[in-house]
């Protein structure tokens, strides 16, 4: 019945395919980490702006989160990659398009900006879970608004939201696979490329799945150490 399929698991370690997968993994890790750095700091800033006393800053921050959360990441990525350079005008846009490895930089930036909106939402939830008394207590010590956020509220909120941030950190590696659509040769791209060369896409994608699982488990391991380190004593874990 049907057409027979000859499994050839050798594509996972036969060269150059085995090395392709490892190169892809390396790029996946790089995109994830660099994107996370942007997402983390930009997300904290946006999340904090949402609770500041200045109306226009609050408006900007909430508009930012709504826009970035309600448009598919693929569309965002295409917009930045294909339309982004043109936003700078004809001549300058053409110069940007000549940058070597532009797709990698765009992928990192787009992933960072997108994930920042999610970090900002967690940040807001973190602020909301701190009781108003705490804010007043801090201000009564004579700290300014800026000092209050910088030294008390933000560090406190960050420790509260460490578990959801861990989940976001895991998600960023998964979302980095979308970068393949603009030709970034990360792990999913490589498994697809092996299919194009050998017609053994099933084995290649299964191998890539295994690599993603190992990556995910490693991240969970590392993050559980981080979570324990930053856990607020006396609070229940998740």
């Amino acid at each position: 019945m049907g057409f027979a399929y000859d499994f050839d698991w050798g594509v996972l370690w036969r060269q150059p395919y085995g090395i392709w997968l490892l190169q892809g993994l390396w790029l996946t890790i790089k995109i994830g980490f660099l994107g996370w750095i942007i997402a983390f700091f930009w997300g904290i800033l946006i999340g904090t702006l949402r609770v500041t006393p200045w109306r226009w800053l609050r408006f900007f921050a909430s508009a930012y989160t709504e826009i970035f959360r309600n448009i598919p990441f693929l569309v965002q990525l295409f917009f930045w990659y294909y339309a982004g350079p043109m936003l700078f005008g004809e001549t300058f846009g053409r110069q940007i398009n000549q940058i070597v490895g532009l797709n990698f930089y765009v992928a990192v930036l787009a992933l960072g900006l997108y994930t920042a909106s999610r970090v900002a939402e967690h940040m807001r939830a973190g602020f909301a879970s701190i009781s108003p008394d705490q804010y007043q207590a801090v201000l009564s010590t004579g700290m300014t608004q800026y000092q209050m956020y910088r030294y008390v509220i933000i560090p406190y909120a960050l420790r509260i939201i460490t578990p959801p941030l861990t989940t976001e950190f895991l998600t960023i590696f998964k979302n980095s696979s979308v970068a393949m659509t603009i030709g970034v040769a990360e792990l999913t791209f490589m498994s697809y490329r092996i299919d194009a060369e050998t017609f053994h896409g099933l084995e290649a994608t299964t191998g890539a799945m295994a690599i993603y699982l190992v990556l995910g488990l490693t991240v969970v391991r590392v993050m559980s150490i981080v979570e324990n380190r930053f856990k607020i004593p006396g609070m229940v874990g998740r």
Partner: protein
Amino acid sequence: MFDAVARNIGFLMGGFGVTLQLSFFALTGGIALGALVGLGRISKNKWIYRPITLYVNFIRNLPLLLVIFWFYFVMPIIAGRPLNPFLSAVIAFIIFEATYFGEIFRAGYQSISKDLSAAAYSTGMTYTQTARYILVPIAFRRMLPSLITQSIVTFQDTSLAFVIGLQEFVRRTSIVDNLEVRSIQLYGFVAIVFFIFCFIGSKISRHFEEKGRKTGLL
């Protein structure tokens, strides 16, 4: 300003129709399977609990894009003949989203306390009546905001079917962009359309959340 969009509006909206179809099948299938997965996740029988939990944790650790590819490669082998990408995409979405919906259902089922069913029984209600009039409505109202949010995510996720050549909204836009080279307006248009739908959806979700909080349900 949107001249290239206007010239190709029929073709583009046809793609949006495919996106809506894909979302419809992914959501009905994903929610139905998710309701069962949620039951499996609270099962006391380890032969049900363990495989279901393994399936959920396995899928949730993978990028959706890779799952779409995997089903695209594996479906023809199972079926023994080439399949159209739409069918393999729908199956991939159902299998993938059901794990996310399953966790929502699990939380919903677990939010029902034993006291509540005991109280219903004590009024003389039968099991069916208790489930029909007390447990299911309350669990459903508690889950509703998360279900809507995840439905929006699923709707956005369907754009990833782009990678197996399915002519949905984004794929058709990129086809038009290759001819017209009007990236700003074309991708801007897709972004606006997605935004309107998802923004309204998120407002509805928030409405039910507020309502639940006010009535003390959440």
